[in-house]
Each structure stands twice: as C-alpha cells, then as structure tokens.
C-alpha cells in the first residue's frame, strides 16, 4: 500500500473567467425576486390567491368611487382618504406578503446559501424591505391612478381640469409612500422573528390591530395634550398624523377630514422617522444574528 497508484486526470473542467456581476446586481436580483414573490408571480396559483384578492378588492373600490364621481359629480373619498379607508386591507396584505418574503427562507434554512454569495447581511434584509415597500406602494398607488384616470377623462374643464387633478394625485401618491414605508418596516420586522408563516401572519395582524383601539381610548382622556398625542399609538393613525401635518389641505382638498393633532405635527414626523429607523435597525440586527447561526 506504500506505492502511490492514484492519478488525478485533467478532464477539462474550466473555471469561470467571464465578468462577475457585483453587489448591485445581487441586490437587484433579490429585490426583483422579492417583488415577484409578494404578488405570487412565477409561483403556483395557490400563492396568487390572497395577494390578488386584496388587489382586486382595492381596484374594485377605486372603480366604484370613480363611477360615483363621474355620474354624480361628487368626490366620495379623496386620494389620501382612499388610502386611509383601505387600511385593513393593507394590514391583511402585509400579513400575507411579509411572511412569504422572510419566514419561508428562515424555515427552509436557505439563508446560509444566500450569505455564501458576495451579499452583505444587511443587503438581504434591505432588499426584502424595499420589495415590500414597493409592493405596498403599488397596492395603494395603482387604484389611485385608476381614480385619476377616471377623473381626468370625465373632467369638464379640459387640460386645466386634468392638471388640477394631477396636482391632487401627487400628494396622494406621496402619502401612499408614507403608508408603505411605515407598514413595511413594522411588518417585515415582526415576520423576521419567526419561521412559521402562520405565526408571522397572526403576529403582524395582532400588532397592527391591537394598537388601533388604544388610540380610541387615549383620545377620550381628560387631557387635551394626551388627546392630541393619542394618534402616535397606532401605525395607521401615526401615518395620518404625519400626512395631516406635512401635506395638510393637499390631502383633504377642503373636505372635512384630517385628524386633530393640534400643534404636535413635528412630533408626529419625528416619531414616524424614529419608528422606521428603529424597525430597520432591529431588522438588520436580527439578520446579523440569523446569519451567525
């Protein structure tokens, strides 16, 4: 057994010598894949049921509002009020999408495969977060575009009317972006805590729903300051508060609306920024820990 008899043959395998795509392409691929995952594209029909159910409902509501407006000439909901009215559907959409994005990867243990690529830990989480934000923004922005098109084609004042309508739409889209950023950061953080999609969905809904009645209670407290700060307690009313402060009349377009936040507008903006920052940094911390396992 002392004679070395083995020979390693060169059977012609070649190393890859072509160009290698960098970090940006990895991020982009992950983002694109995440966005497709949210809507169930490229997956079985079962995965499409819930996301497209929500999309269908919001689109039908927007079409109904457009029809009412074109027939009766009455604005039932402005663009921003539309986003507020759809809040329960947005919560449901987050509960569907966020576990799909992160919980499945945790459950099936593919994260080591991801992190064996030239992919920084943070990039994985940020790409998923960006995908969820984009999806939420599309979910709220798409129906607003439907409403805009309906209004633009039925306006009686020509190009002037279309231009005015566009000026109403843009703050609405900005406001939808605010919704998307806040809800995506909270939802993805909750979902990243557990590998079970069922628990992740339940947890997200519990977090969002539990906070809403707190606002209702705080706003009937005997202190005016507490009343005006009450809307900080829930993500959806926090978003409304920031919108009321930052965009003001642009959102309500002279109608009744907005929430009574008094002079605390800047507080709402600061809290919203801090909330998103805290959620994102906790998410990054979470993935530092997961990746270390």
């Amino acid at each position, binding site marked *: 057994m002392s004679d070395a008899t083995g020979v390693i043959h060169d059977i012609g395998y070649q190393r890859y010598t072509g160009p290698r795509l960098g970090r940006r392409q990895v991020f982009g691929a992950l983002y694109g894949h995440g966005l497709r995952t949210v809507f169930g594209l490229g*997956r*079985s029909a*079962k*995965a499409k049921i*819930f996301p497209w*159910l929500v999309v269908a*409902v919001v689109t039908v509501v927007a079409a109904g509002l457009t029809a009412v407006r074109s027939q009766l000439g009455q604005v039932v909901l402005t663009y921003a009020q539309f986003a507020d009215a759809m809040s*329960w*559907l947005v*919560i*449901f959409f987050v*509960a*569907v999408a966020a576990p799909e994005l992160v919980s499945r990867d945790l459950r099936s243990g593919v994260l080591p495969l991801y992190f064996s690529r030239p992919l920084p830990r943070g990039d994985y989480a940020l790409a998923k977060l960006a995908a969820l934000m984009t999806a939420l923004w599309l979910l709220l922005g798409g129906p607003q575009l439907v409403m805009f098109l309906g209004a633009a084609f039925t306006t009686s004042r020509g190009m002037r009317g279309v231009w005015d309508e566009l000026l109403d739409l843009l703050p609405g889209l900005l406001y939808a972006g605010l919704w998307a950023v806040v809800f995506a950061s909270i939802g993805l953080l909750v979902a990243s805590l*557990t590998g*079970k*999609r*069922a*628990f992740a*969905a*339940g*947890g997200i*809904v*519990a977090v969002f*729903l*539990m906070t*809403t*009645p*707190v606002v*209702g*209670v705080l706003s*009937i*407290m*005997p202190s005016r300051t507490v009343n005006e700060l009450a809307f900080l307690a829930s993500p959806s009313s926090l978003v409304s508060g920031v919108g009321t402060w930052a965009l003001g009349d642009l959102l309500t377009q002279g109608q009744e609306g907005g929430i009574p936040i008094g002079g605390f507008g800047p507080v709402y903006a600061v809290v919203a920024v801090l909330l998103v920052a805290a959620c994102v940094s906790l998410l990054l911390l979470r993935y530092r820990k997961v990746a270390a396992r």
Partner: protein
Amino acid sequence: MSTVTWITARGLFGRSRFLMLLPLPLVLIGLAVLCRSLGVDPGQWGPPVLVGLGLAVVLPVVALIVGTGVLGAEIDDGTVVHILTKPLPRWQIVLPKLAVAAGVSAVTVAVPLYVAGVLADSVRLGLALVAASVAGALAYSALFLALSLVSRRPVLLGLVYVLIWEGLLGRFVDGTKVLSVQQWVIALADRIAPTALLGTTVSVPVAAVLTALVTVGFTALAVDRLRSFSVAGETS
C-alpha cells in the same frame, strides 16, 4: 384527560411563542385600569375597550392563533401522522383538540374582559362578558380548527374572515352582521346584562342559534375532513 388533550396542551404551552399571546389581554386590562383610575366616563371608554379591543380584536386573534395552531402546526410539520395512525376514532382527535383550543382562548380572553367589565359597569356585565366570550371562543375555535383541515393556509383564510368580513364589511354593510360571530357575542352579552355599552342589530335568538350551529357544524366538518385526510408538503 385523554392523551391527545395532553399532547395538544403541551404543544401549545411548551413553546416560548405562547408568550406572544400575553400582550393582548394585558393591554386590555391596562387600558381599563387606566381609564377607571383617571375617572373617564365608562359610557365613553366602554365601547372602544370592551368591543373595539376585547371582542373585535383580542377574541378573534387569540382564537385564530390558538385554533389554527392546535392541529395546523402538526399538519405543517407532518407529525399529525403519528396521531392519525393510532386506532382512534377521528372525533376523539378533533374534540380534545377543540376543547383545548376553546379553553385556552376562553381563559385568555374572558379574564381580562371580566376585569374590564367590572371596572366599566358591574360584576353582572363582567360575568355576561365571560359567558358570551366563552360561547364566542367555542364558535371561533370550531371555525378555525375546521379551516386548518380545509385549507393549507388556514391563518390567512381566518384573517380574511376576521378582517374583511367582520371588520370591513361589518362596518359598512349592515346585512353581513347576521353572519358575524363578533355580533353574536355582543348580542348574547347584551342580553345577559343589558347596558348602554353594548349594542347590536342582531337579535338574541338568532345569535344563540347561529352560535350553536356554527360550533356543531364546523366540528362535524372537521371530523369529516379528518376522515380522509391527505398529508402533503408545504404549499409553494
């Protein structure tokens, strides 16, 4: 106490994630105590705390997580096979699991509701809320347990019911309230302890009959579905 009951209870309590359920009742009690100690009029804080938080959020969400968890978790990781291959009639699997689910949800929800009811009005309202929420927990648990056998995504289906049917449609379309467990619970509680705090459009006999019907019907459905159950992998 059968072995299935024991396994189910241990599966629920044995994990730390059961602690995730605790904040919901704690917030309920905390808000009630806060309002009471500040002397806010119960007519004002009663509806948002008792109905808005207690019956509309805590009860369905706890029942959803527990009710789909007792059987759904075992189906998910495939260990349900170990129970199914034992020589047990199917109802002896479903009923203990339903009992555990309903019991856990009922205790988690009824205790804070009792405290809040006593603080809001009287012991009678507290007891009425306890009785009604136990009935509601039974109906919800039966519904969600059956869902976990009908579909591979029981939590999302349950959320569709809780969020869209009860939450969204219940607010805008009055007719849907007849088929809403939440409204039945309110009707029952209001019948036992008539106060100005609870109010609904559903009549009490309808609520009582439908609650019983849902409980029995969905339990029967669950037993029937478990009779010919195919174990499959996670949906893609």
